C-alpha cells in the first residue's frame, strides 16, 4: 500500500518536473522596457531633401543614409494623420508612416532616426516626403505602413523637450514661396503664423458618390470662392449632413450631369443621393496675412472638425495666431493645425 502511494507520488513529481507544465506566467510586473535607440545621423534632413531634383521623379535611396530629427507633429487630434514630421536644424520632412494614433509611440520632441536605404523620396504637390516606393504610380511615394518596414527603418530615440515653433512673418512666407518647396528649409517645420485675418471663403471637394470614380468631373462638386455658411473648421459626416439639410450647399453644382434623369446638377436636386452617400469632408478656410493667402486645411476626421469657429474671427473682428505644420499646395501656403489649441485669438 505504502509502496503504491509512494510510486504514485513519484509519478506525480516526475510529471511535474520533467516538463515545463506551466508555460504561461500570470503574475506580471508591468514595468516599461523602453530603451531609446542611439544613432548618429550621417546626413542632414536638408541634404537628404536635396537629393530630390525634379517633380515627378521620385528618388529611391540605396545608400546607407541616416537622418535624425525631433518629432514636431502630433496626430492626437486626428488632423494630421499617417504622417510623422521630424525636424533638425537644417529643415524638416514628412515620413509617410501610414499608421494611426502614432502619438502613442512618437512624442513631440522625441528624437527619431531614419535609415533611408530602401526608402523613396518623393513629392506630393510640392511637399517632400520620405516613404516607400509606389508601383501603382498614383503617388511618388507610398506609406511605409508595414510594421517590419517601420521597425527596420524608423528608430525611436530619447524623449526630449518639444521643439519651439518658428515664428514666421509675411515676408518669410513670401520668401519661402519664392524659394519653392525644394529649396526652402521652412516647409514641414513647426511654425507659428501671426495675425491671420479671415478671408471669407472656403474650399471643399464633395463627391456625389464616394463609391464611384472620384476622378470623374461629373462626380465632383466644388465648394469654393465663398463661405457657404460653413462656420466650422471642417465637416464630419454628421456636420456635413447638418449643412446639407440646412440647404447651405443647394446652389453648388457639378460641371457635368452625373444622374441625367435629375432636373439639374445642383445639390438641391441631388440631395437625397448626397444624404445617402454622406461622408466626412476636409475644408480649407481662407485667411490672409498682409497680401498673402493662407489656407488652413482641416480634416473631416479631426476631432475638432465640427467645432464652431469664434464668430469674431468670421466677422474679421479679431485676427488669430496659429501653430502647426507649414506646407505648400499648388504654389500657395497651406497650413495644418496640430489641434484646436494651436489657435489663439488676438483680442
Amino acid at each position, binding site marked *: 500500500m505504502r509502496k503504491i502511494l509512494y510510486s504514485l507520488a513519484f509519478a506525480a513529481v516526475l510529471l511535474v518536473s520533467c*516538463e515545463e507544465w506551466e508555460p504561461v506566467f500570470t503574475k506580471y510586473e*508591468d514595468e516599461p522596457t523602453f530603451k531609446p535607440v542611439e544613432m548618429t545621423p550621417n546626413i542632414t534632413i536638408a541634404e537628404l531633401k536635396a537629393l530630390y531634383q525634379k517633380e515627378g521623379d521620385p528618388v529611391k535611396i540605396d545608400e546607407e543614409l541616416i537622418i535624425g530629427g525631433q518629432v514636431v507633429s502630433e496626430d492626437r487630434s486626428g488632423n494630421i494623420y499617417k504622417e510623422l514630421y521630424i525636424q533638425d536644424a537644417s529643415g524638416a520632412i514628412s515620413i509617410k508612416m501610414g*499608421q494611426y494614433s502614432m502619438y502613442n509611440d512618437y512624442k513631440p520632441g522625441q528624437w527619431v532616426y531614419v535609415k533611408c536605404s530602401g526608402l523613396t523620396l518623393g513629392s506630393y504637390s510640392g511637399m517632400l516626403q520620405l516613404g516607400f516606393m509606389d508601383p501603382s504610380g498614383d503617388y511618388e511615394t507610398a506609406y511605409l505602413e508595414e*510594421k517590419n518596414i517601420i521597425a527596420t527603418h524608423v528608430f525611436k530615440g530619447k524623449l526630449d523637450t518639444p521643439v519651439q515653433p518658428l515664428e514666421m512673418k509675411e515676408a518669410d512666407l513670401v520668401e519661402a514661396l519664392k524659394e519653392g518647396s525644394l529649396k526652402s528649409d521652412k516647409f514641414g517645420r513647426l511654425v507659428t503664423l501671426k495675425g491671420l485675418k479671415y478671408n471669407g471663403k472656403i474650399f471643399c471637394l464633395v463627391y456625389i458618390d464616394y*463609391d464611384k470614380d472620384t476622378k470623374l468631373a461629373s462626380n465632383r462638386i466644388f465648394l469654393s470662392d465663398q463661405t457657404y455658411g460653413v462656420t466650422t473648421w471642417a465637416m464630419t459626416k454628421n456636420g456635413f449632413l447638418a449643412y446639407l439639410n440646412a440647404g447651405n450647399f443647394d446652389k453648388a453644382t457639378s460641371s457635368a450631369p452625373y444622374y441625367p434623369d435629375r432636373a439639374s446638377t445642383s445639390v438641391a436636386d441631388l440631395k437625397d443621393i448626397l444624404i445617402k452617400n454622406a461622408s466626412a469632408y476636409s475644408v480649407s478656410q481662407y485667411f490672409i496675412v498682409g497680401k498673402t493667402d493662407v489656407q488652413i486645411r482641416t480634416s473631416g476626421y479631426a476631432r475638432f472638425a465640427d467645432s464652431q469657429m469664434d464668430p469674431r474671427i468670421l466677422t474679421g473682428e479679431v485676427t488669430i495666431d496659429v501653430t502647426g505644420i507649414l506646407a505648400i499646395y499648388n504654389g500657395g501656403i497651406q497650413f495644418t493645425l496640430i489641434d484646436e489649441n494651436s489657435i489663439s485669438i488676438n483680442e
Partner: protein
Amino acid sequence: MFKKVTLALAALLVALGVQAQEPTGGVKGSVVSRTDRAPIQNAAITLVQGTVTVAETVTDEQGAFLIPHLENGMYDLIVNAAEYLETRVNVNVNDGYVKNLFTISLTLVKSEVTDEFFEEFDMDDTGYADTPTILFGQNDVFNNIAGYNFSAVRFRARGYASETQDVYVAGVRLNDAVTGYSPYSLWSGLNEATRTKSSVSGSEISDYGVGGYNGLTNLPLNASNVRTGWRGSVLTNSALYRLRLMLTYASGRLDNGWSYAFNASVRMGGNDWVRGVYYRSFAYYGAVEKFFNDTHKLGFVFMAAPGERGKANASTQEVYDLMGDNMYNSNWGYQNGKVRNSRVSITHEPIAILKYDFTPSDKFKGSATLLYRFGRNGNTALDWYDAADPRPDYYKNLPSYFYMENTDYKRLNPAKAAWARDSWDYQIPEIVHVDWDRMINVNSQNYEEGERRAKYIVQERRVDQKDFNAAVNFRWRTAKNFTLTGGADIRVNQTEFFNVVNDLLGGDYFLDVDNFAERDFAAYPTMVQNDLDYFMHEGHARKVRKGDKYGNDYYAQIRNGNLWASGRLTLGNFSANVAGRAGFSAFWREGLVRKGLFPGVTETGAQIIWNGQSITTYDDEGQPITSYGTSKVQKFFTYSGKVNLNYVIKGGHRFYASGGYFNEAPHFNQAFMSPRTRNSVVPNLTTTKILTGDVNYQFSSNGYNVRLTGYYTTIKDQSKVMSFFDDSQNSMTNFAMSGIDERHVGLEFGFKVPTFIPNLSLQGVLSYGKYIYTSNPKMYQTVDNNATIVADTYGVTIPYWKSHPTEDGGTVQHYVPSTPQLAASLGFAWNKNYWFIDADVDYFDKAYLDMNPLYRTDMATAGPDKMVTYTEVDYMASQEKFDPAWLVNVSVGKSWYIHRKYQLGFSLNVKNVLNNKSVKTGGYEQTRIVENTSGKERYYRFDPKYFYMAGTNYMLNIYFRF
C-alpha cells in the same frame, strides 16, 4: 458460437456436479452500469477458485444472476460485459447460505468525459462558451462510440445545437438561463462526483422532465451515488494540460443513515499543440446525505470548478500558412520575455443544492430540490482607446493587405507584401505575437494631467449569475401497468453583464468613454460618455482604475416556470408514454448606467438636458431610446408534448418510436439589438417551434448490441443577434435575424458484435444526416452609435441565406454548420483479464462553415454598383464545405487488484495517430468586406477564420482505488 458451446458445456458440468453433491450454498446478485444504475443484461459471470473455473452464467433482463449449489469456500467472481471493464469480486460462501452480493456496478471502458469537451470556441463576446453535444455515459451503443470518437471534430448529434441538450442536476434543469447552453463547464474536473448519471437520447421521455428533442441527462450528485471508497488518479495529456491530480472519497451509506463524499482535483499547465493555452484550474465537491428512514432523505451538495484558463483563437488560413502551423494562437505574446495570454477565462461559480426525497411506499416517490448558482464568470481581452489594433493577425499586418494578384483589390505593392511575409517567416515576436512591452511603454509614457492615462488595458468581461431554482418531482405507480410522473419548477435569474479593469498595463487610469462614439461625435461631449450621470455630475468623464467597472453594466432578468406530467402505460410487450409541459418565460433588460448615446428620460419622464438642450433621442415610433432602467418585459407562453411508443420482442429485439412538438421561448441573448447599450428589443420576437419524430430498432443479446434510428425534425422561427463593423456603413452595427428555419433528417446506426476471436468485438457507428436551412430569415440592421435603421437591411429578407442560385438555373443549398453531417467509425475492442484495447478508424465529411448573414444580402452581392450578377452571388453567398478527414484513435488500459483490496489501473488514449493536422473543426466568416475596389463593381470577402484539431495527442491516466 464457440462461446455458446463452452457455456452450455459449463452449464452441463455444473448441472452434473449438482446432481452428485447438491450443496446448498451459492451466490447471487445483480449487475448494473455505474453511470446510470441500469441493469446489464447478458453480462458473463465466471466463478473461479484459484485457477479452476467453477461456474459460468449470464445475467437476465434485470441484470440478475444466481449460481447455486456451491460448496463453502473462497471464490473469485469475474463479471464481463461488452463496453464495460472486467470486474472481480471475492466471495466467501459459508454455512451453506446463498451469498447475496446485491449490486455489482460495472464501469464503462471509456467513461472519462475529458476537458476537451469544454474547450471553448471563442466566437462571441458574451463570455459564454459553446460546447458540442456530449453523448457520454449513456447506456447506448451509438452514443458511447460516437461520444468518444467524434468529440475531437465537435460532432453534434443529429446536427442540433448544444443548447438543445437538456442537462439536469438533482432533478433541476440547469441549462444556462441567458443562453440555454449546457452547463457542463460548471463541474469540469469533478469527473468522479459526476460519473453517475442517467440519460435518454433524442425525444425519449425522461423521469426528470418532458425534455426536448436532443436528449436529457440528469446528474444526481448526491453523496450516496458516489462510488464508495478512496480513489486517486494522476492524468497527463498533450492536447490540453500537462497534469491532473484527483482525489475522491465516498463513505457509502453508513449504519447511522449518513453518507458523505468529496471529490477534488487540480489541472495545471499547457500543452504540446497550442502556445499560450494553459490551465490553472481547481475543482471541489462536497456532499452529505442523511437517510432518516426508508421514507425521508435529505441531501446537500456544494461544488465548483474555480480557476483560470488561457484560451486559443481562430485565425485565417493565410496566417496559419505563414506560421506553418494550423495551431497558431494569436492571443498571446511576450511580456519581458515571458509568455502572456490576453484571453483568459477566470471563473468561480459555485452550486449549492438541497434535496429532499420522500418515498412513502414502493409505489410513490417524490423529491424537492432547491438549487442556487452564483459567483463570477469572467473572460479577459485587450481593450484600447485611440491606439493601433494590438492583435497580431489583424488583416493590415498580413501580406495580402499589400498585394493581391487580383488588381480589383487595389493591393498593388508586392515589395511591401514581401516585407510583411518576412515578418511572419522570421516570426518577429513583436509582430506575430501580442506586443505587451510596447503597450506598457505606450501607457507609461502617456501623461495627461500628471497621470499616466492607459491606452491599452486588459479588461475582464463579466457575466455573473445569481440563479435560483426550485423543483418538485414525483413518480407514482397508480396501477401495476401505469406510472404517472410529474413536477413543477421555477427559476429566478439575475445575471449582471459588466466590464472590469483587470490590468492597466503600466497606466494609472483608463478613461470611461466610448471610442467608437468618439469617431462620430467627438464634438459632442455627452455622446461619448459611457457613464453620463457621472459626467453630468462631475463635469468630466470617469477615470477608472484596476478593479473598477466601466463600459457597460446591465442585468438580464429572467423568470421561468413550468408544470409537467407524463404517463406510462404498459400492456405486455407494448408500452406507451405520453407527456406534456406548459410554462411561461419572461425576461427584461435592466440598464445600470446611463450611456451618453442613449440617455432616455429621467425617472419622471422628462428629457435629459445638457447645456440647455435636450439630449434625449427617440426611435422611429417616437419612444425615447434608453440605456438606463428597465426595458419592456418580454413574455412568452411555452409548451411541449411528446409521445413514445415501445414494443419488445423476445430475444432482445426492441422497436420504439417518438414524436414531439415544442414551443420554446427565445433566450435573452437573442432578444436585444444591442444589450450593451440600450433596451431596444429585436422586432417580431417570437417562440421557436419544433416538430420531431424518430423510429428506432434495437437488438441486444449475447454480446450483440445494435441500434438503428431514423429521425426527422423541423425547427422554425429561431432568431440570432450579433454586432459587427459594417464596411458599407463604415460603422459598428447591430444585426438581428429572425425566422431562421432548419430541417434535420438522417439516420444513426451503431453496433458492437462479437467476432470469432474470443473477447474481441467489432464496433462501429454511422451518422448520416442532412441538416439544412429551409427559410430566408428577415434581418434588422441598426447603427450601433445612434440606433438608426439601415434602410436597405431593415425588415427585409436575406435573399441568399438558405440557398443561392447559379447561372445555369440551379440552386445551391446552404447547410447547418459546425458538425460533420456524415460521421462514421469502425474499429475493434478487445477486453480480457483487466486489459482492454480499442482501435478505431473514423471518417468525417459534409461539415460546413458557419455563415455570416451579411454576405447573403443584396447589399453585399450587388457591390458598389448595385448590380447583382450570378458571379457575385456565387462568390459572396457560397458556403464553404470542409475537406473530409480520416482519423485513427487507439486506447489501451489495464488494471490490477492488489491483495484483493486495492486496485491500480491505467488507461492510455492516443488520438489522431496519423498526425493529421489539417482537420478543421469549426470557424466563422468575418463580417467585413473589401469595399474600395478599383472597378467599383463588386465587393470582396475577408478571409474566414478557422479552428483546427490537434495532431497526435495522448492522455495517460493512472488511478488507484483503496
